[in-house]
């Protein structure tokens, strides 16, 4: 068995919250110091385990937002209604608090700098998190591979990483927003769901043979993946990551 493929069994590590950053009124980024963290690829996730005083435990998966940086990782958590883990992470956890994490996890919904094909990213809501890791990883690696990002969000104020995305768009990242509930004044399209015509206008055509990464709530991912395949993208190059609203 080749060295690179053998990872060993995964164990829980105790991380410490090193910093907290508000991204929107409901989402925030937690910067975690994880002793012994082995590094990760863009798109991978971590499992976070919370344990109550009575021993009850809850485990949730969160995408890693940051590029590999020693023993430090960042996750961005959107608070979901009645979410027993997200409520704590997005609202209560503070600097110095310990958290159990295990990872990195996943080898399929991943972008590596060795890839040479164009990359189409399609985000729904906080599904932008692992895609942001890919954008950051491309930049950190100095990769010249063409990337495009289509980001579907409810309204302008719910955009995560807004300032950074603005900067990256100014630096040449083709970035398109699709607003589903409320659009900025003067926006060319009325708010609404992503459809085939917007997808065709804002993404690489199938002839460019991009790898497509689609991340968001399950219904969003189902819709976008079906539209991409109907438009002529090879199903084998449409990689999806759904998240349930837990």
């Amino acid at each position, binding site marked *: *068995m080749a060295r690179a493929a053998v990872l060993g069994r*995964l164990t829980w590590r105790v991380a410490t919250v090193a910093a907290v950053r508000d991204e929107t009124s409901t989402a925030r980024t937690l910067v975690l110091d994880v002793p012994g963290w082995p590094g990760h690829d863009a798109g991978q996730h971590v499992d976070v385990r919370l344990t109550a005083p009575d021993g009850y435990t809850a485990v949730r998966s969160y995408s890693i937002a940051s590029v590999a940086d020693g023993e430090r990782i960042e996750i961005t958590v959107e608070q979901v209604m009645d979410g027993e883990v997200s409520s704590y992470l997005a609202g209560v956890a503070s600097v110095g608090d310990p958290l159990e994490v295990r990872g990195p*996890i996943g080898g*399929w919904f991943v972008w590596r700098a060795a890839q040479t094909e164009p990359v189409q990213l399609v985000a729904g809501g906080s599904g932008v998190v692992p895609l942001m890791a890919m954008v950051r990883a491309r930049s950190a690696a100095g990769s010249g591979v063409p990337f495009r990002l289509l980001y579907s969000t409810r309204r302008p104020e719910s955009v995560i990483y807004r300032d950074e995305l603005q900067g990256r768009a100014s630096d040449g990242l083709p970035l398109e927003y699709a607003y589903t509930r409320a659009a900025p004044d003067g926006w060319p399209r009325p708010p609404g769901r992503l459809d085939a015509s917007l997808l065709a206008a804002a993404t690489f055509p199938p002839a460019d043979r991009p790898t497509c990464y689609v991340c968001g709530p*399950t219904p969003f991912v189902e819709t976008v993946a079906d539209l991409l395949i109907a438009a002529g993208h090879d199903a084998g190059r449409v990689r999806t*990551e759904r998240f349930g609203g837990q």
Partner: protein
Amino acid sequence: MTTLDGNTALDGNAAGGDLRTVFALDVTAATGQCAGCGNTGPLGSAQLYNRAPGLILRCPRCDAVLVRLVAAPGRTWLDVRGLTYLQFATEEDPG
């Protein structure tokens, strides 16, 4: 893509952590063949049903059960009879 009961399915990606408690390799990037319909693909693209005492991975084409993993205190059961094989990449990473 279809799901068995509404929108409760996730991608196999999300099973990576639990599968790594029994496998020393990342299984989500491994290619599996469905014993039901012969479809092949990465387990990360299978459909994951995890709102249950264990987790179930189903074939994205025919919905057949590929993998069941159930953990109880001190014991774990793994059923992979829905797969005819799993293929892992074993080349050295060029990087």
